[in-house]
C-alpha cells in the first residue's frame, strides 16, 4: 500500500478517535489544527497527494464525526466559541460538495427542534452566504464526464434545488429567511452566473469544462415553478454578458442545450417571458430550435397554440427570435401558416375562448410584421385561403369582440398578403385593443438593444433624450401663443361658440296624423326630418289621437328608411316606436310580434322589433309611470270621490305647519314613490307569447335555427328581458314555463351569444316567477336546468357564459334557501 495513503488514514483515524473520546479542549483543538493541514491554506500544508486522498476518502467521515460531536457542552470546552469557529471552518473550507451533502444529511437526520439542528441550519446559511454553492456546482462542472458519478450528481442536484422545501419541512416555524425560495433561488441564480464565469475563464485558459450540471439545476428549478426567481437574476446578467462576447454566447447556448428534455418547456417559457427582447433571446438561445426537437415543439407549437397566458412582449420576443436568423425564418413562416389556419377555422372560433383568439390574432399580426413581402408571396394562396375562411366565420359571429378581431386582422393581413388589391377598410370603433393590435402590425424598428442592455447606465441614457425633447417642445409652443397675443392689443377673449350650429327651419307638424302623412308622402326632407323629431313628443302629448292611428304609425315607422343622413336617425325612430307601443301596447305589440315572423323583413328590422318590444315593456313596467302619464292628460285609474277633497285640507295643514315651524337646515324634500300597479301586467302576454311561438318554423328568408343565429340570440335576450319585466304579474308563471321549454330546446346551441341569452333568460325566470310556484309547477324543469347550468359553469369555453351560469346557479341556491326554512317546522 502507498505509504502516503496509509499515513493519511492513520492520522485521520487517530484524530477521529481523539475527537470522539477526548474531553480536553486543548487536545481537540490541536487535533483539528493538525487535520486542517490537509485542507491546505495553512503555513505548512500537506503534500498535494495527501490532500487529495484526504478529500476523496476521509473528509466525509470526519465531517460526520464532527456533526455527531456537536453539543453545547462540547462547544463550551473552549471559551469564546473558538471551537465552534474551528469546527465550522471544516465545512466552509473543505470540498464543497461533500460538506453540502453531509450538512443536508445531518439536517435531515437530526430529530426535532434542537440545539444541533439550529446550529446546522445556521451553518448552512453561512455556507450559502459564503458563496460555497458556486463551489458545489463548479466542482461538478470541472469533473470530466467519465469521472462523474451519476448517482452522487443526482443526489446533489435534488438537494441543491430542493433545499428550500427540505429545510422548510425540517425547521417548520424556525426556518431562516435565507432558505425561503424567494431568497434562495435568486441566490442560486447569482451563483450559477459565477459558475458560468468560472467556466468561461477556464475555457479561455484552454481547459475543458461542462455546464450540464448548471443546466440541470436551472432546469429543475424551473420545473419546480421558480422561473421568475432564478431566471429573473440569470437572464439580465447573461443578456449583458453575452452582448460582446462570442464565448459567453456559446456557453449560454450550451447551457440551454444541456437542459434535460423534461425541463425544456419550463426553461424556455421562463426565458421567453424574462428575456427583454428578441435580440437578447436570440443571443441566449442560438439556433436551439433547430437542434432540439423538444425545443422546437415548445417554441413553435406549445407557446403559440396550446397556451395563451403569455404577455404580448413575450410573444414579440418569441416570434422576433424566430425571425432573426435566416435558418429560423422558415419556422416563422410555418408558424404563420398554422396560426392563420387556426385563426380561420370556424370550429376554433366557436370553441376557443376569446382570450385565446385574441392571443392568436396578436401572434398573426406580429408574424406579418416580421415577414417580408417576398416570403409572404411564396405561400400567398395558402394564407389567402385561410384568411378568407376566417373573415367569413368571424364576421358571421354574433359576438362583437370576435367580429372586431376579425376586422382588424383582416385589414392588416390583406394589405400584406395581397398588397396590390384595393385596401380593405372596415368600420370599427377605435379602442385600446384595436390600437394595440394595429401597433403590433406596424413593423418594429430593428434594434431593441437600448431597453435590453440591462446595464444600469442605459435607462438613464434613454431617459435624457426624452427630457430634451420635452424641453425642446415647450419653447416651440410658446412663441405661437405669444404671436397671436401680440396681434391684438385689446384682449377680447372669445366666448364659447360651440353652440353655433346650423339652424333647422321649423316645419314640425303639430298633429300625429300630420306626422304620419309627412313621413309617408313628404318629399320635403326638412319636413320629413322635423316630423320624425317631433313624433315622440306628439305621441306622448296626445295619447288618444295616437291610439286612433297606432298600428298605422308603427307600420310606417317600422318601414322607415333613412333617406337623408339625419343625425341620430336610429334613435329617433326607435324612441318614436317605443312611444307608440307604450301608448297603445296591446294592438301595437300584436302587430310587431306578428311582423317579427313575417316574410320580407331585413334582419335589422327584426332586431329593431325586438329592441322596441323590450324597451316598451321596460317603460310600461316602470314604477311611477302612471303619475306622469296622468299628468299628460290620460285619465289614470279613477280614484274614489271621497278622497278628492282630502288633498286640499292636507295642503292647508301642511302649509300652516311649514309657516309656523322654523327649520335650521333643510334636506331635499323626500318623496316616497307611490305604489302603482304594473301596467305591463295586462299586456305582457301580447309581447311574449307570439314571439316565443314561431322560432322553430323556418321561412324562406328567415331561419332562426340556421344562419340567423344573431337574431336568435337577440330573441333569447329579449324574451329574458320581457320575463324579467313581467315580475309580479299573473302571467309570469306560464311565461316562465314557456321560456324554460324554449331554453331547453336550444341549450346546446353552438353560438355563444345565443347561449348567453338563454342563460340570462333562465336567471330572469328564477327572478320573476314566485318561488313557491316554481317548485310546485316546474320542479322537473328546474332540476334539468340545474344540471345543465352546472355543466355550463364548468365547461363552457365562453367566459360570459360561465359567469352567467354561475349567477343562475346562485339564484337557484337562494331559491332553495328561501324555501328550506319553511320545510322543517
Amino acid at each position, binding site marked *: 500500500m502507498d505509504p502516503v495513503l496509509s499515513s493519511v488514514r492513520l492520522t485521520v483515524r487517530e484524530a477521529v478517535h481523539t475527537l470522539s473520546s477526548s474531553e480536553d479542549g486543548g487536545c481537540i483543538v490541536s487535533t483539528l489544527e493538525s487535520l486542517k493541514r490537509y485542507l491546505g491554506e495553512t503555513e505548512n500544508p500537506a503534500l498535494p497527494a495527501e490532500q487529495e486522498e484526504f478529500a476523496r476518502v476521509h473528509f466525509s467521515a470526519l465531517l460526520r464525526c464532527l456533526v455527531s460531536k456537536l453539543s453545547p457542552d462540547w462547544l463550551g470546552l473552549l471559551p469564546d466559541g473558538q471551537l465552534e469557529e474551528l469546527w465550522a471552518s471544516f465545512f466552509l473550507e473543505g470540498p464543497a460538495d461533500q460538506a453540502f451533502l453531509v450538512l443536508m444529511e445531518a439536517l435531515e437526520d437530526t430529530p426535532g427542534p434542537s440545539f444541533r439542528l439550529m446550529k446546522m441550519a445556521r451553518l448552512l446559511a453561512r455556507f450559502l452566504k459564503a458563496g460555497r454553492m458556486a463551489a458545489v456546482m463548479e466542482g461538478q462542472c470541472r469533473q470530466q464526464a467519465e469521472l462523474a458519478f451519476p448517482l452522487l450528481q443526482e443526489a446533489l442536484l435534488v438537494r441543491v434545488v430542493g433545499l428550500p422545501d427540505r429545510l422548510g419541512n425540517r425547521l417548520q416555524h424556525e426556518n431562516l429567511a435565507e432558505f425561503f425560495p424567494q431568497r434562495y433561488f435568486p441566490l442560486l441564480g447569482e451563483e450559477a452566473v459565477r459558475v458560468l464565469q468560472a467556466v468561461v475563464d477556464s475555457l479561455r485558459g484552454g481547459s475543458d469544462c461542462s455546464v450540464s450540471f448548471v443546466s440541470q439545476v436551472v432546469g429543475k428549478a424551473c420545473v419546480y415553478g421558480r422561473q421568475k426567481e432564478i431566471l429573473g437574476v440569470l437572464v439580465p446578467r447573461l443578456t449583458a454578458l453575452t452582448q460582446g462576447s462570442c464565448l459567453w454566447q456559446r456557453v449560454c447556448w450550451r447551457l440551454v442545450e444541456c437542459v434535460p428534455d423534461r425541463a425544456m418547456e419550463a426553461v424556455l417559457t421562463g426565458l421567453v417571458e424574462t428575456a427583454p427582447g428578441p435580440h437578447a433571446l436570440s443571443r441566449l438561445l442560438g439556433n436551439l430550435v433547430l437542434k432540439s426537437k423538444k425545443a422546437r415543439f415548445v417554441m413553435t407549437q406549445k407557446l403559440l397554440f396550446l397556451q395563451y397566458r403569455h404577455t404580448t412582449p413575450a410573444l414579440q420576443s418569441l416570434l422576433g427570435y424566430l425571425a432573426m436568423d435566416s435558418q429560423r425564418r422558415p419556422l416563422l413562416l410555418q408558424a404563420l401558416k398554422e396560426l392563420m389556419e387556426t385563426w380561420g377555422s370556424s370550429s376554433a372560433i366557436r370553441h376557443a375562448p376569446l382570450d385565446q383568439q385574441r392571443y392568436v390574432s396578436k401572434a398573426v399580426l406580429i408574424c406579418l410584421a416580421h415577414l417580408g413581402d417576398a416570403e409572404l408571396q411564396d405561400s400567398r394562396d395558402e394564407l389567402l385561403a385561410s384568411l378568407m375562411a376566417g373573415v367569413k366565420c368571424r364576421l358571421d359571429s354574433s359576438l362583437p369582440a370576435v367580429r372586431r378581431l376579425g376586422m382588424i386582422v383582416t385589414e392588416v393581413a390583406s394589405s400584406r398578403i395581397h398588397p396590390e388589391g384595393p385596401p380593405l377598410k372596415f368600420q370599427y370603433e377605435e379602442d385600446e385593443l384595436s390600437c394595440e393590435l394595429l401597433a403590433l402590425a406596424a413593423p418594429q424598428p430593428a434594434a431593441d438593444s437600448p431597453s435590453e442592455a440591462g446595464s444600469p447606465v442605459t435607462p438613464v441614457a434613454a431617459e435624457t433624450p426624452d427630457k430634451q425633447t420635452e424641453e425642446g417642445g415647450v419653447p416651440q409652443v410658446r412663441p405661437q401663443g405669444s404671436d397671436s397675443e401680440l*396681434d*391684438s392689443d*385689446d384682449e*377680447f*377673449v*372669445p*366666448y*364659447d*361658440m360651440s*353652440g*353655433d*350650429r*346650423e*339652424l333647422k327651419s321649423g316645419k314640425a307638424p303639430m298633429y300625429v296624423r300630420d306626422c304620419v302623412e309627412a313621413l309617408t308622402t313628404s318629399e320635403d326632407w326638412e319636413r320629413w326630418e322635423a316630423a320624425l323629431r317631433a313624433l315622440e313628443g306628439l305621441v306622448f302629448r296626445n295619447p288618444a289621437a295616437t291610439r286612433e292611428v297606432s298600428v298605422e304609425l308603427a307600420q310606417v315607422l317600422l318601414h322607415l328608411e333613412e333617406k337623408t343622413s339625419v343625425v341620430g336617425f336610429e334613435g329617433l325612430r326607435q324612441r318614436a316606436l317605443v312611444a307608440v307601443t307604450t301608448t297603445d301596447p296591446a294592438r301595437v305589440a300584436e302587430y310587431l310580434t306578428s311582423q317579427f315572423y313575417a316574410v320580407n323583413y331585413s334582419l335589422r328590422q327584426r332586431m329593431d322589433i325586438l329592441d322596441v318590444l323590450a324597451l316598451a315593456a321596460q317603460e310600461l313596467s316602470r314604477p311611477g309611470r302612471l303619475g306622469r302619464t296622468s299628468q299628460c292628460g290620460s285619465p289614470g285609474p279613477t280614484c274614489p270621490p271621497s278622497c278628492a277633497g282630502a288633498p286640499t285640507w292636507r295642503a292647508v295643514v301642511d302649509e300652516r305647519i311649514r309657516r309656523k315651524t322654523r327649520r335650521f337646515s333643510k334636506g331635499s324634500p323626500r318623496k316616497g314613490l307611490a305604489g302603482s300597479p304594473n301596467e305591463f301586467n295586462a299586456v305582457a302576454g301580447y309581447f311574449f307569447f307570439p314571439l316565443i311561438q314561431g322560432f322553430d318554423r323556418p321561412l324562406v328568408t328567415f331561419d332562426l335555427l340556421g344562419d340567423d343565429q344573431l337574431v336568435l340570440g337577440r330573441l333569447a335576450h329579449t324574451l329574458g328581458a320581457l320575463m324579467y319585466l313581467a315580475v309580479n304579474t299573473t302571467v309570469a308563471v306560464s311565461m316562465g314555463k314557456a321560456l324554460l321549454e324554449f331554453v331547453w330546446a336550444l341549450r346546446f346551441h353552438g353560438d355563444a351569444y345565443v347561449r348567453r341569452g338563454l342563460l340570462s333568460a333562465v336567471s330572469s325566470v328564477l327572478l320573476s316567477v314566485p318561488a313557491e310556484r316554481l317548485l310546485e309547477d316546474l320542479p322537473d324543469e328546474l332540476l334539468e336546468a340545474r344540471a345543465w347550468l352546472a355543466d355550463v359553469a364548468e365547461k363552457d369555453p365562453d367566459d360570459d357564459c360561465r359567469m352567467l351560469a354561475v349567477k343562475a346557479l346562485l339564484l337557484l341556491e337562494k331559491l332553495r334557501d328561501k324555501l328550506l326554512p319553511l320545510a322543517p317546522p
Partner: protein
Amino acid sequence: MAAPPDPQFVLRGTQSAVHALHFCGGAQGREHQLLLSGSLSGLVHIWSLQTRRAIATLDGHGGQCVIWLQTLPQGPQLLSQGRDLKLCLWDLAEGRNAVVDSVGLESVGFCRGSVLARGQQRWMLAVPGRGSDEIQILEMPSKTSVCTLKPEADAKPGMPMCLELWQTDSSARPHLLAGYEDGSVALWDVSERKACSRIACHTEPVMGLDFDSQKARGVSGSAEKALAVWSLDEQQALQARGTHQLTNPGVSDVKIRPDRKLLATAGWDHRVRVFHWRTMKPLAVLAFHSAAVHCVAFAADGLLAAGSKDHRISVWSLYPPP
C-alpha cells in the same frame, strides 16, 4: 373658454316684432339713457334703461311697421320712418310726444333712411326716392329736395336696401354709401351727384351696412351666408377686403360700436354675432332669441341691444369699454 354670456336684461312688452332700435341721451350717464324701439304694429316705445320700463309709447304710423328710428343731435328730436310712407319728426323735449313735422315718402320698400347733421339747424336726410332705384336727398328741416341719385342707365342695381350718409372731418363733401338689391355697394358723392365707385359684395340683396369713417372701412351683410368687408382707398374707390363666412344665412342688420372695437350682426338664425371689428375675429354668438333678430344697436357707453321677431329686446354688456 367661457360659456356664452347671458343678456344683462330683457325688455318685454312691445307685443309685436321689433324692427328698429335706437339709443339716445347717453351723454348724461346711464340713468338718463333711453332706448327707442319701433315695432311691427307701428308703435314706438321709449324705454328707460334705469327702470327698464316703457315710459312712453308713440303712435304715429297708423299701425304700419316702424323700420327706422334716429334722434337728432340738436335737442330731443326723433325721426321715425314707417311703412305708411311717412317719416315723422317728434319732439320729445320735457316729456312731450307730438309729431312736429312729417315727410311723405314715395318708396314702399324696406330701405331705412340716413341722416347727416351738418350744422346746428340744418341737416341732410337720405331716403329712397320715387323711382325704384333712386335715392332722394333732402335738406332739412326745410324739406327741400337737394337732388336725386339715380344710377346710370346700364347699371341696374335694383332697389336701394340700406343707406349711410357720412362725411370726413376734413372735407365738407357729404358722401352716401348705398347697398342695393343686386348685392352691390355703391359710394355716391352727393354734391356731384355721381357714383364714385361700386363693388359687388354679395349675390343676394344687401340687408345692412355700416361704415367706419376713421379707418375708411365698412361691412355689409346680406341674405346670404357671409359678411363682406370692404374699404375705401385714396381715390374714393371701394375695394373688397374679404368675406367672413357665417354658420347660417341671413343678416338683417350690422352695427359697429361707436368706439370701433366691436361689430354686431343681427341674424335670421335668431342669433346675434359679435366680432372684433379690426381683425374680424368671432368673439361671441348670442343665442337668446327664439326668432329672427331684426336689428341691433349700440349705445355710446357700449351697451348692445337686439330686437327680434319674438317681441323681445335683449340688452347685453359685452367687453365694456374702459
